[in-house]
């Protein structure tokens, strides 16, 4: 088949806009470009059933809004948004682009609803985010289903299991893409490209470049399809990198989670109520430093630094009902020694750790909802809050491993979502959106629902700017 069509895609024709990727940013770009009148081809590497990238595991989006509405309980204004972003990134951000993103997120909800998103009315159990974050009814996969339906209705050509492996770029200008589909390689031409294919966190070999063999013990919380292939292509072809390549958002999650795609359910919220030991049965960090939602993201790295990248959270019967139920049942034992055996730890070492911990606990008034005064004394590392002796059987144990959410390395972009090349000149028709460029704004840390904000804002901009380029270019020729 040289120039025939397959699955609705015509390889003989030149598409206006090629979208690489199939998550939130890709769909926002595809929908926007199509609504501007372009012929749009979207190539998604995942099969239909796993389409949607990491967006299928998301649940909410944070956007600027002046007042409450059907799904948000109060206003979220620019300065508060800005302060929140500065706090989580510690100032590691492109300030102009960050300010621009926040402003561009103003009332995003209205656009989303117009394009099929259904928000759920604010209710309990939403991490106290009901004022700042809008929750998708049914979560991110439901949102992706809605966006795909909208894109199809508008006439975007969508091909699944089509992995783009190379881009033809001459003088910083994109002309064609090579993709693998149905066992063969094909080339498709387009006037502009939007790369929205995510980070490289599912590429264990790439992670090993920075983490060594330890990366074999990492669990990837999201899609197995984010292998960073296009990120590598863009960087190799002269795109200017952004973000620390060594950094990734790593959370401590249940070690029994699937290697990929475990998503939200693998999180464990028990750490701050007990002790955490490594495979030698030793504690290694203050479990009660702060509320778990403010600390879970440092624990991924902490566990990654332990031997064999494994740790165990141990609580007793007093704490079992204090946190969200876990997907895997806890390992249960009537004594610390028996727990050690079940976890395959040295019983003597674990017993000693627990005895030392228990005798260092100073009595206080336990309060799970406050930074309470239950502390240890003379213990290294200390436990600063919620320290209660482990003395009430049954004891419960949960194995922990680092769970990688996303990587920070990406390509530099400007406010038009154009990829900036190493000579600091923007590529005229190469655009990027979503996780692949989120590092411009999120240099470190994370803020719930903000990845979706960046994806939606830059997806829409990339879609629009790609069409603007196509129109101007056609006028010129």
């Amino acid at each position, binding site marked *: 088949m040289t120039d025939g069509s397959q699955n609705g895609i015509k390889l003989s024709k030149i598409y206006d806009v090629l979208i690489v990727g199939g998550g939130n940013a890709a769909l926002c770009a595809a929908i926007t470009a199509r609504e501007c009148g372009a012929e749009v081809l979207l190539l998604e590497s995942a099969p239909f*059933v796993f389409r949607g990238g990491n967006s299928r595991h998301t649940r909410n989006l944070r956007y600027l809004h002046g007042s409450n509405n059907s799904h948000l309980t109060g206003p979220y204004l620019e300065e508060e948004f800005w302060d929140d972003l500065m706090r989580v990134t510690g100032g590691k951000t492109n300030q102009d682009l960050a300010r621009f993103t926040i402003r561009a997120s103003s009332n995003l909800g209205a656009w989303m609803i117009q394009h099929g998103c259904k928000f759920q009315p604010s209710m309990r*159990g939403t991490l106290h985010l009901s004022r700042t974050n809008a929750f998708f009814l*049914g979560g991110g996969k*439901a949102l992706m289903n809605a966006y795909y339906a909208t894109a199809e209705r508008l006439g975007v050509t969508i091909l699944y299991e089509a992995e783009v492996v190379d881009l033809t770029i001459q003088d910083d200008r994109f002309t064609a893409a090579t993709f693998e589909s149905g066992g063969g390689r094909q080339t498709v031409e387009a006037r502009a490209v939007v790369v929205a294919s995510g980070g490289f966190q599912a590429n264990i070999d790439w992670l090993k470049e920075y983490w060594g063999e330890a990366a074999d013990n990492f669990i990837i919380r999201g899609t197995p399809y984010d292998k960073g292939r296009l990120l590598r292509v863009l960087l190799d072809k002269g795109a200017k990198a952004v973000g620390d390549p060594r950094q990734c958002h790593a959370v401590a999650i249940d070690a029994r989670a699937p290697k990929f795609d475990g998503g*939200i*359910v693998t999180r464990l919220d028990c750490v701050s109520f007990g002790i955490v030991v490594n495979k030698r049965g030793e504690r290694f960090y203050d479990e009660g430093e702060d509320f778990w939602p403010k600390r879970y993201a440092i624990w991924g790295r902490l566990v990654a630094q332990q031997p064999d990248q494994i740790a165990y959270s141990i609580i007793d019967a007093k704490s079992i*009902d204090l946190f969200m*139920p876990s*997907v895997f049942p806890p390992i249960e034992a009537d004594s610390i020694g028996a727990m050690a055996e079940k976890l395959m730890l040295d019983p003597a070492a674990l017993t000693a750790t627990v005895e030392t911990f228990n005798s260092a606990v100073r009595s206080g008034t336990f309060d799970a909802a406050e930074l309470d005064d239950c502390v240890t004394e003379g213990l290294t590392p200390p436990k600063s809050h919620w320290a209660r002796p482990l003395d009430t059987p049954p004891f419960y144990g949960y194995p922990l491993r680092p769970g990688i959410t996303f990587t920070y390395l990406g390509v530099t972009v400007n406010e038009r979502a154009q990829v900036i090349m190493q000579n600091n000149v923007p590529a005229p028709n190469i655009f990027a959106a979503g996780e692949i460029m989120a590092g411009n704004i999120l240099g470190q840390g994370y803020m719930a629902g903000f990845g979706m904000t960046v994806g939606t804002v830059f997806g829409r901009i990339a879609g629009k700017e790609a069409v603007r380029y196509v129109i101007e270019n056609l006028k010129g020729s």
Partner: protein
Amino acid sequence: MSSKTLKEADRVMTICNACRYCEGFCAVFPAMELRRTFSEPDLKYLANLCHNCRGCYYACQYAPPHEFRLNIPRALAELRQETYRESSWPQAMKGFFQNNGLLVSLITALSITVVLLLTLLFQGHDVLFSIHRGEGAFYRVIPYAAMVVPFTVLAVVVIVGLGKGFVNLWRATGGTTEDLMSGSAHRQAIADVLKLKYLDGGGYGCNYPDERFSMIRRYFHHTVFYGFMLCLASTTVAFFYDHLLHRPAPYPFWSWPVVLGFLGGLALLVGTGGLLYLKQQMDREPATPETLGMDVAFTVLLFLTSLSGLLLLCLRSTALMGTLLAIHLGFVLGLFITMPYGKFVHGVYRYAALLKNAVEQVREKI
């Protein structure tokens, strides 16, 4: 967990409870969130609270082929079917829920044959195929006692059977006698039933027959429900006309029994027809193949009962009246006999679950 079905329901709800993304769809998820672990009564309650709107299936990041293989609507439908069997009264009838479609069809066919044959046998060929008009015309074909006595006895059996089933399910889901007496909970549950609230999928309808949100199933189901209620009202009014006012059927078109019955019959035709059409289109994945026969048999039976009733109304002044009357009564007989042992029970058990939900929600707010 005492059965494979319960084990699977426990497995899927435990995973679900660690996610909770679907809490905006229906009552099942907020009820799930009140629990950390699930007892058998909890699971049976959640199974009957599920309306199979399927929102959670299409939204699920863990749906097959994900290794967690979450298919909440199917797991709960299978457990629901198990509770139908276990709650049926008398227990000897629980086997009726297996091959239910076939059994319901056979019993209905048998009912029609029996009514026709008995009429022919006792009344003779001439009576059955003659024209009868005016007051008491129906009784000239099938005598008063032959009509009223069997149906009254049957009605009592049906009410007792459904009532016992309700109590059995109420106990099986952990309901207490005290909660059963809560007036406010009954008011809430009745409102939920009348509005068919949980087929609205959080305000956008079910994902039925396919992935798209749609109110169509809710509207068709409403049509069936209110059509059935109109027919019930028609029968009740006719009963009073006959026994208190001593005005036996048939009645003129512009009379309460006929107008109510006519509208109800039309609604049932449209509603059941619509539901059958949707069922034929539906995605089978979030359903259990086990109940397909039961669902279809009941819906078809309702459709044919109303169709035969409407035909009887149209042709009652012709020589076909006798045959149509016998056929219609045969359908009604089949419907009555199978009522406590088929799809009809879903309404009764769903009510029990909605009642328990109303009790829990009130308790939660206090």
